[in-house]
């Protein structure tokens, strides 16, 4: 099992290399010239040429990429062309904000997805099953940003339940931290909750028909023990894959959700940089989120081994 995870992680450098090169090329293809953007309104052509020279923007792409890579390997992700702030520093400063959002969303997915999945599986074909199926289909179709806007309208503007925008550090006030994250977390997690719930419902319904569940009943175990201990552990295995994919989705989805809720996270940082062709911040965010996804997948692999003893050894 650990060997498998180790082998997967051994691929991480190559994946990072490929993704960074791919993004580098994509940004280069975009019709945005950072030198022009830097020069401001009514730019002087001489200034543009000077900036191009200073930032080595006229060098061929492979040369620029290898230069970036050389610095990156030494832990230096470069500076933003505009703010002149080091990217590594900025990204690490904002990371806790995004991890907080992810944490809240993941907790919601686990609690909501498992709860709804179990409720839907208890009596196949009955009202709860149908409600979960119908609700899940609707939730999968709802755009998260629209849901976010609706929540702001109803829960911040009409009724002042939650703050509409902003972010408060956990260390400043855990309660305010949570209040600011509940709405964005929910907007992010509706689709994953529905996906996980539907998957789990199907998987659990099937598992509850297995022979070993009959054995557990014949042993005199209570239904609660049978569902949460004997069935859920087996039913969770196929759901785990879906869960891992949903976490990757959250990372992408948070870019938009940050905009809706005015959260100064990596997403806003990325969008600002992308609009100006500011390549270093873009690469910094991409490299970081790639690493988060790789680590997440490793965690899913380890969880597989925990749930399925056949994969250990």
């Amino acid at each position, binding site marked *: 099992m650990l060997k498998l995870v180790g082998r997967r992680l051994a691929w991480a450098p190559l994946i990072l290399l490929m993704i960074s090169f791919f993004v580098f090329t994509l940004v280069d293809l975009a019709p945005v010239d950072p030198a022009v953007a830097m020069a401001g309104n009514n730019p002087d052509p001489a200034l543009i040429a000077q900036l191009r020279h200073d930032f080595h923007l006229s060098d061929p792409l492979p040369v620029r990429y290898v230069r970036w890579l050389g610095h990156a390997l030494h832990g230096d992700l470069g500076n933003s062309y505009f703010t002149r702030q080091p990217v590594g520093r900025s990204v690490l400063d904002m990371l806790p904000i995004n991890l907080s959002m992810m944490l809240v969303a993941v907790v919601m997915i686990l609690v909501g997805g498992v709860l709804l999945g179990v409720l839907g599986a208890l009596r196949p074909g009955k009202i709860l099953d149908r409600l979960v199926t119908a609700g899940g289909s609707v939730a999968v179709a709802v755009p998260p940003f629209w849901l976010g806007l609706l929540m702001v309208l109803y829960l911040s503007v009409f009724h002042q339940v939650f703050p509409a925008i902003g972010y408060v550090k956990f260390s400043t006030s855990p309660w305010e931290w949570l209040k600011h994250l509940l709405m964005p977390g929910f907007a992010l997690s509706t689709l994953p909750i529905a996906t996980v719930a539907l998957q789990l419902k199907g998987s659990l319904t099937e598992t509850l028909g297995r022979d070993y569940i009959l054995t557990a009943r*014949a042993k*005199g175990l209570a239904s609660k023990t049978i569902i949460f201990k004997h069935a859920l552990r087996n039913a969770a295995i196929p759901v785990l894959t879906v869960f891992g994919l949903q976490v990757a989705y959250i990372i992408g989805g948070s870019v938009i959700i940050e905009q809706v809720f005015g959260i100064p996270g990596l997403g806003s940082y990325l969008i600002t940089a992308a609009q100006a062709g500011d390549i270093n911040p873009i690469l910094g965010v991409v490299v970081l989120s790639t690493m988060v996804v790789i680590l997440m997948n490793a965690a899913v692999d380890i969880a597989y081994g925990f749930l399925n003893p056949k994969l250990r050894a």
Partner: protein
Amino acid sequence: MTVDGALLLDVDGLTVEFNGPNGWVRAVEDVSFQVHAGEIVGLVGESGSGKTVTSLGVLGLTRAQGGRMPHGRVVFEGTDLVTLDDKALNRIRGRRIGMVFQQPIRSLNPAFTIGEQIAETIRHHEGISRSDAWARTVTLLDKVHIPEPAKRARQFPHEFSGGMCQRAMIAMALSCSPSLLIADEPTTALDVTVQAVVLDLMREIQAETGVAILFISHDLGVIADMADTVAVMYAGQVVERASVEELFISPRHPYTAGLMAAVPRVGQGRQLVAIEGNVPDPGNYPTGCRFHNRCEHAVAMRCDTDLIPLLPAGEAHDSRCVRTSELMLEGVVVA
């Protein structure tokens, strides 16, 4: 083998129905048999005759599958199990009545070790400490002849063979010293050689602990080998009941005789006779005797009109056939 134990299980008129697309369907109807302490009772019949539903019905396990029991009593150790709710039944399931199933590997949870699954049963019913339960688990595995029981207890079902899984299941079913063991086709899924070993084990354990066994099988040979008394099931009903010797020497129901004629025997140079047709599906049972349209002795207006009750056909011998006293049927054992 004579049995003089007290009455342990009295199944009387048990009826089990399942809800299908066309309403409630009666899978098992008016099934009655008795199990005395220390006795091995065989329940025999073809697939679809209602043996498994009967065995699950005894423990109320048909409820979880959407079944109901509109009639009948299942009196076990003085209590009618049909009237109990799940909570009360859970104090009997696994503690007073153990159960072993047909597919040993599939009947064990793949996510937990063999030992965990046995110890869980003991702890659930007796609330003893983890280490005590584990010690007893290892002893139990030793008792069912699993080599290196302490090491094997830490292994998962996929590391066990089918025969080993069935031994583990037997250990689990016996873990709380029940007075009744229900074994539903316990050797059907096993290789013939392993089958014999598991049957020997069950007999050995029966002799040692005195547990009564309700032994369900479609295999007449296994039943003849194991059982003290036998109930033959057909299309959801018990059609004949007798002691094992009586049944095999002189069957009184044409269906039982038909089953015996279909068993190959060495040295008789006789052709095997199959029973024509198939067991009807629940919901499509013919009127009158449910066997009449496959029966070579059936007579119009007598066999196909009225529901036929179990009729006395001798000393502790019953048959659900109106022509029982007129027919001379051939058994298996030549006395």
